[in-house]
């Protein structure tokens, strides 16, 4: 393979790399939507004890029963609020814990949220990033409470 061919390859490679660098510098950043994200949280106590399913859970009850095998589901709290992008919304949880939700992007009815659950003392139990379509719910469960666990249902929009 001759020198001229090698030179052509080298020039081509350099051009492509320059193009990559250029695109990184010139393209606009990812657009994020404006406005506040409505947030709804249901804090549920689930345990294997008498008590049945709390009627206030509505349609969520059936989904919980498909997912878990507890005999009792009790709605402890249902805080609601809203937060703008990159603004945190915080609420307390039983056992001196806290929940913080921070929207990081809104786009076409989809919300990207950072969800953080902290134990008493401030140490993180879980730190997650989720994408939810408006009206959809994700569950964070497992923190111990009395004889069972907490299940936190988070809905955006």
């Amino acid at each position, binding site marked *: 393979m001759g020198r001229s061919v090698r030179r052509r390859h*080298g020039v081509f*490679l350099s051009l*492509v790399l320059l193009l990559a660098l250029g695109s990184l510098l010139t393209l606009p950043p990812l657009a994020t939507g404006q406005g506040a994200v409505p947030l709804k949280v249901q804090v549920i106590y689930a345990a294997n004890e008498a008590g049945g399913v709390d009627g206030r859970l509505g349609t969520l009850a059936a989904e919980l029963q498909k997912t878990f095998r507890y005999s009792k589901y009790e709605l402890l709290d249902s805080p609601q609020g809203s937060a703008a992008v990159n603004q945190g919304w915080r609420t307390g949880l039983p056992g001196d814990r806290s929940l913080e939700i921070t929207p990081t992007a809104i786009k076409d009815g989809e919300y990207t949220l950072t969800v953080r659950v902290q134990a008493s003392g401030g140490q993180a139990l*879980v730190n*997650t990033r989720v*994408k939810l379509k408006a009206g959809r719910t994700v*569950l964070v*469960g*497992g923190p111990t409470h009395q004889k069972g666990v907490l299940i936190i249902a988070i809905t955006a929009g």
Partner: protein
Amino acid sequence: MGAMAHWLHMSTGRGRRLAAYAAGDLAGPQRARAEAAVSGCPGCRREIEAHRRVAQTLRATPRVTLTDAEAGAFWSGVERRIETRERPHRIPARPALREMLWDHPRLSLASAAAAAVLVVGITLTQMGGWLSSSNGFPNGVEVVSVEGGSDAPVMLFQMPGSSLKVIWVFEEPTAE
């Protein structure tokens, strides 16, 4: 409904014990404690049971041995290699990347093509129209990333027939 997705975040001592439990490697009080941790979570139990069955099947794999001829000739093969090492010879220098590209035009073309793909990928990402389209994730919920705390492994799952994705935290019990 998508397939179930289970994983356990192995960041903690407790997470590692759950991994050992999944493998069927725990006994006694440690096993009992791990059982308690998954008792209310049938998705976790199914995942763990499947892990255990895979481990058991693998352990039953028959060993592969040398044939008589291979075994007979094995040591002389080793000896030849030892003697070759003991004879000094020039080891070719590892070519620098630049020389590799100059001498291997196909490699340099492949590198250029890979860089071109990278450019296209970055461009589409920046435009935001590729990775997160509104039809990108079933059931309208996607868990992009999750990590547990310093002593809290995390499992992600979704049961068949349910629309709910669950992020399950295995919190260490703390007696009051």
